[in-house]
Every structure is written in structure tokens, then in C-alpha cells.
């Protein structure tokens, strides 16, 4: 992968604010978009705007084909056995809500449990917290170890015959921890073969090679906008046999086969879960993003981010007063670094960095339970992607020193 060629694909990197370039270090929040994705979406707007599945005319058939080709491409990208297993949603939150709302009513009764982890994004925590208890079950929380990793042996205490779902993040959006998914799946199924395993892969699919068959989880979720695609399009992948027996999440157009006054016959997979006109150009944009990533190769993406992350950890550690969180070993760490600066609140850090167009995220990163567990307030977070350079990291380090000088 040639970084300078790659950067040329992202028109936003040409922008200057107050004459200075942009140092974008917030890719865990959302990624920048390559021209290839923008063009794919523009093409839908300028040459074949039409609804899908309905029209008999050329443009509608083109739109349907483009929409379904995106689905096929995404299926192949994560090695899904069938494109019927790819459900388009709004984002990861909606994918996880779909699962919580449709799985829990028939699966949870008094005495049952669902397991999640302390390092989840709120989207994989709040739906379970709110709904599991509604059906009489309990939510069990899997804590992390000091180094930010999960201990697989804890599952013996957390999972039993009455545990219906274990759900966890594939890559933490704060600590960067890459969880050993296939090992967790095996450990859970050994204790309870009927327990479903869900992986929130919002921070995994954009950054590391993903093979759902090798992972062995029953469902995974991810968002388009974190992987070079547009915001407003997300994916739920679930094993076909499971998806097939799941009741619909939303009712309406397109998700039906026949409607009569007294009853309705639902559509086939995956359309049963895609009520209403979908985000057609969003799916097309995501398909283009996947194509772009495939051209680079996910092994290359991962290699680049590992290199940048190692470099960033080394540079940040050399600054007195910086505390970093998460695993030190780059092999089990994605391209995200949460840190704190002694004596300066993260919001002030971000504000001063913004003077030099250095974009970082500060706050709880939608993971308040994790911050409470760590016993810290807000943190600063720098996160990387294929366009991040060592010069970006150097700019961050320089910026942090400027902050320290100001608050000395």
C-alpha cells in the first residue's frame, strides 16, 4: 500500500482550514470518504435514480441490480455463505436493536441471562440492559483485566445452561482491544451449545480481515460510515437458519409477499428485515467502499494500522504526563489510542489541538460503563485508518506539547 497515493483518493485531505492541513485522527468515530465512493453515489443520483424492486423500466432495474450487487460484495467481503444473510440497516445500533427486539421476547424468561462486556459501546450495552430485564432475565457483565483484555476463563462463571446470548465487541472503540472471537465462541458453545454469540464488529470490519465462518459467531453487526462508506447504512449479518426463524423487526412495504385484510405473508430473506424504501445510494456507496478496500487488501490495511499504532504508542509514551489505556501489544490492538494528559481536561486538549486542525475525540466515546470501571473521567482518543501517516502522529505529539505548555 502506497500511503501518498492512497491519500490522493480522499479529496477532503486537500482542504486547508486557516491555511493549515487537516490532521484527521477520529476515524473510529467516522472515516473519511474516497472519491470512488462519492462517485458511486453521485452516479446513482445523476444517471439511474429509481426505487428498487418495483419498476419495470431500465433505471429501476439498474438501481435494483446495483443495490443487490452491493449486498453480494459485502457478503463476499466478510465471507458470508450467502448474501441472504446480509440485512441492510441504518447503522450498528439499529442492527443490535433489531437483534435485541426480535430475539429476546421468545428466548428470555425468568432466570435466563444475557452476557455482555464492560467495554461495550453503548449500542451493545443499553439495548440489552433495557430489554433483558423487561422479559425477566438478568444482564451479566464480563469485566476486563488490567491490560484491557478479556479472560476467557471468566466464561465458566458467566455462562450457564440458562444463558441465551453472549454479545461482545470484536474491537474496543476505546481500548483498541481485539477480542479472540473464535476462542470465545468455542468456549461459550462448549458450556451451552444453544447460547447465541453476537459480535459487534463496527470497529473490526473496517480495519481487519473478517471471516464470519472462521469466527463462528451467530451474528455480527457493523456500520458503513466507519469503513469509507456513507453514514446511514449499516449491516446485520446472521446465520441464515437463525435469521429465517426470527420475526420481523419493522413492518411495512417491501418486507411482505402477500397482504390480506386478515393476515400477511412475509417476504424472503433478507427483505423480511428491510421494511420501506431502503437507503439505496447508501448501500451502493458502501458496496463501492468495500470494493475500494478489497483493492487495497485488508491484510495491507491491518499492516499499515499496526505500524501507525505502534509508532503512536511509542511517541505518546515518551511524553511525560501521558497515560494510555488498553493493551500494549500491537498484535491484539486496533488503531485506536485512548489517553489522558495529567492536569488538563480532555476537552481543553481537543480545543487547543483544533487550533492546528488536529481532530481527536474526547469524552466517554459512548462507553460510560468502561470509563467508570477504569475509574477515570473523560479520555482523549486518537484513531487511525489507511490515510493516517506518521506525520499525523508527529503533529499530535507536537500539539500535546503545546497543550502542556499552555497549562503549565
Amino acid at each position, binding site marked *: 500500500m502506497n500511503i501518498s497515493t492512497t491519500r490522493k483518493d480522499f479529496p477532503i485531505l486537500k482542504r486547508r482550514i486557516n491555511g493549515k492541513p487537516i490532521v484527521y485522527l477520529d476515524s473510529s468515530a467516522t472515516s473519511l470518504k474516497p472519491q470512488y465512493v462519492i462517485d458511486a453515489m453521485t452516479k446513482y443520483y445523476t444517471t439511474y435514480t429509481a426505487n428498487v424492486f418495483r419498476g419495470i423500466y431500465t433505471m429501476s432495474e439498474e438501481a435494483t441490480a446495483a443495490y443487490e450487487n452491493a449486498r453480494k460484495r459485502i457478503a463476499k467481503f466478510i465471507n458470508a455463505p450467502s448474501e441472504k444473510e446480509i440485512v441492510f440497516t441504518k447503522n450498528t445500533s439499529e442492527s443490535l436493536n433489531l437483534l435485541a427486539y426480535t430475539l429476546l421476547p421468545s428466548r428470555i424468561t425468568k432466570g435466563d441471562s444475557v452476557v455482555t462486556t464492560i467495554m461495550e459501546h453503548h449500542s451493545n450495552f443499553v439495548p440489552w440492559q433495557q430489554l433483558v430485564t423487561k422479559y425477566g432475565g438478568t444482564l451479566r457483565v464480563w469485566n476486563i483485566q488490567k491490560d484491557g483484555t478479556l479472560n476467557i476463563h471468566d466464561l465458566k462463571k458467566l455462562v450457564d445452561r440458562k444463558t441465551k446470548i453472549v454479545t461482545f465487541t470484536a474491537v474496543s472503540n476505546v481500548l483498541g482491544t481485539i477480542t479472540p472471537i473464535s476462542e470465545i465462541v468455542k468456549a461459550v458453545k462448549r458450556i451451552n451449545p444453544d447460547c447465541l454469540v453476537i459480535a459487534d464488529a463496527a470497529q473490526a470490519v473496517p480495519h481487519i480481515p473478517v471471516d464470519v465462518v472462521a469466527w463462528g459467531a451467530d451474528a455480527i453487526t457493523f456500520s458503513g460510515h466507519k469503513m469509507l462508506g456513507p453514514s446511514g447504512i449499516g449491516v446485520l449479518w446472521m446465520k441464515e437458519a437463525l435469521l429465517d426463524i426470527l420475526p420481523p423487526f419493522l413492518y411495512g412495504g417491501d418486507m411482505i409477499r402477500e397482504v390480506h385484510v386478515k393476515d400477511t405473508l412475509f417476504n424472503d430473506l433478507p427483505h423480511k428485515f428491510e421494511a420501506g424504501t431502503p437507503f439505496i445510494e447508501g448501500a451502493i456507496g458502501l458496496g463501492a467502499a468495500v470494493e475500494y478496500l478489497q483493492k487495497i487488501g485488508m491484510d495491507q490495511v491491518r499492516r499499515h494500522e499496526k505500524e501507525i499504532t505502534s509508532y503512536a504508542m511509542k511517541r505518546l509514551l515518551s511524553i511525560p504526563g501521558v497515560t494510555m489505556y488498553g493493551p500494549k501489544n500491537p498484535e491484539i490492538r486496533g488503531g485506536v489510542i485512548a489517553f489522558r494528559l495529567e492536569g488538563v*481536561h*480532555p*476537552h*481543553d486538549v*481537543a*480545543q*487547543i489541538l483544533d*487550533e492546528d486542525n488536529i481532530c481527536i475525540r*474526547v*469524552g*466517554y466515546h459512548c462507553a*460510560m460503563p468502561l*470509563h467508570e470501571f477504569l475509574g477515570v*473521567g*473523560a*479520555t482523549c482518543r486518537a484513531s487511525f485508518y489507511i490515510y493516517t501517516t506518521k506525520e499525523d502522529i508527529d503533529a499530535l505529539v507536537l500539539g500535546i506539547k503545546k497543550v502542556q505548555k*499552555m*497549562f503549565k
Partner: protein
Amino acid sequence: MDIYRELILDHYKHPHNFGHLSKPTATHTLFNSACGDKITMEIQVDKKDIVTDIQFSGEGCAISQASASMLTDLVKGKTKKEILKLTSADIFSLLNTELSVSRVKCAVLPLEVLQKAVTSTV
């Protein structure tokens, strides 16, 4: 940078009325989950509805801490009614600095917490 003028940094590093009251009449805490500020206000109110003492605690950015520090100075000796009449404009003139949209929430949070604490004593 203009926003971090000397007075604000001074209040941040050496906040006034920072700590706890032994027997507060009312206490209130609010979070700003977007950036991670947390402010607690403890107030002592006498029979004439006058706030005789006030302390704040929590973690926040320079803007929210300075705002809390200056606000607690301002309201000591004021009546509950007077405090409830305060608006974000009063906070802006206390801070006397240029606030971007994302910082307005930080600046106003202490007033929000204080007014909630005052209301809870009614």
C-alpha cells in the same frame, strides 16, 4: 489562544469554593456526556431563602471549572429567586471569552446544576 485567557486558567488551576459542605440543604449533579464534564453543587440555604454557602466539585474542562468557580463567587448571599433568574448570558459575561458552539454547554452546565439544586429546595 483567546479562550484560555489568564483569569480562566487561574480559576481552573485554583478554583474558588471547591469542595463539600458538611450539611448542605441541597445537592445536585449533572453530566455532560458529550465531553465528560461532571459537576456537583452543594448549597446551604437559610430561612430567608438566601444561599449562605456553596461548594462545587467534580471534573471538567477549564471552561466548566472556571464557570463554576466564578458562579459560586457570584451567588453567595443571593436569594433563590435571584439565582433562578440568572441566564446563560450572565455566565458569558462572567467568563468574558469567545466560546465556540461546542463550549457553550461546558460554560452553562454549572448554572444548570445550581438552578436544579435551588429548585429542589422548594
